[in-house]
């Protein structure tokens, strides 16, 4: 039961992007198309899961003073693997995501979860936490990119969803559009959380 709670908290109630407002850099930068967002979600989920497992395994042998440095080494290892893998097997996606894959190293969601959770809990809980947070991150990026791609290009995952009458709102695929959508979604998530709390 406890594991289930660790698993679902990241989906909505503690959504890393909209409620904790972490990892906004990739959220704003790579959500101009659903395809890019999916690539980013996969990379972040892999890194988060991998580093959570390792960090919770080694948490007792790492001295407190060097824990952040050790966590970063672990995270950077997984990020580099993800980056090289994308470059080798999905060159187009790797090109589209550009520097945002290596930048996962400094994504606050990852280090935040190690520091706040994996370094204090066992492997099983940490896996559940990492999976839950990845799903929360995925929900956030899919929402953002769906709104932006549909309004900005009239397509979803490259398929045409709006007819010829629709003139794409170019601003939605520009950085400004990312901020508009982000603002509305943060408001929406927090409004719902508030309503259910009271």
């Amino acid at each position, binding site marked *: 039961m406890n594991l289930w709670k660790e698993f679902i908290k990241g989906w909505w109630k503690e959504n890393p992007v909209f409620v904790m407002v972490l990892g906004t850099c990739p959220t704003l930068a790579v959500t101009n198309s659903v395809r890019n967002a999916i690539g980013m979600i996969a990379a972040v989920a892999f890194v988060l899961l991998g580093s959570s497992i390792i960090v919770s395994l*080694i948490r007792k*042998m*790492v*001295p407190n*003073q*060097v824990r952040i*440095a*050790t966590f970063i*080494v*672990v995270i*950077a*290892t997984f990020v*580099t*693997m993800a980056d*090289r*893998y994308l*470059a*080798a*097997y999905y*060159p187009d996606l790797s090109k589209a995501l550009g520097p945002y894959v290596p930048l996962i190293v400094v994504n606050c969601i990852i280090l935040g979860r190690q520091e706040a959770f994996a370094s204090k809990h066992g492997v099983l809980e940490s896996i559940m936490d990492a999976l839950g947070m990845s799903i929360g991150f995925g929900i956030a990026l899919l929402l953002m990119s769906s709104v932006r791609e549909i309004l900005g290009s009239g397509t979803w995952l490259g398929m045409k969803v709006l007819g010829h009458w629709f003139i794409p709102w*170019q601003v939605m*695929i*520009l950085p400004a559009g990312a901020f508009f959508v982000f603002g509305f979604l943060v408001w929406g998530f927090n409004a719902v959380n508030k309503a259910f709390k009271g």
Partner: protein
Amino acid sequence: MKESIRMIAVLTFFALLSGGILGWFNTFTEKRVEENRLRELLSSLQAVTGMDPKTDTYEVVKKEKDFELYRILSGTKTKAYAIVGEGNGYQDKIRLIFGVSPDFSKILALKILEEKDTPGLGARIESEEYLSQWKGKAANGSLKLVKTPTQNPYEVQAITGATISSTAVLNIVNKSVLRAKKILKEGGK
């Protein structure tokens, strides 16, 4: 004292472990990354020079960070040259490749490899409508930008609302043509 040795030992251990894992992982991906790069180059060369991958070959004449020159050979005869050039666009670097006839009389085709200009405006330098007009333009390094449709081989029409991006492409082409000519004069066959 004991504590600091433990700190050093733990960090060193993880750094070495990480290096080892990445080195091992790289042996799988490195080859594929290189293959992807070559495949992309080959398809670009075909697109801008009409090179036939079955009968034609290519050789690298010059390769620098912001400039590449390839010679396309049909047997031993030079069929065309392909030039990769780079320069500043409206937001970020524009990198492009274009084919030139062996006597440098005209441009065969132009293709944009990288650009991050504004979608709907500057990014239209990637549109077929704009790129197709480059076919047959003079490769003398002194092309001019005009605002109206043109048939002149020494004039290129700018994209409305994207003068900076259009100028950038034109300047890259002009600069790269002159550079290629100079290199071929000095050391090329």
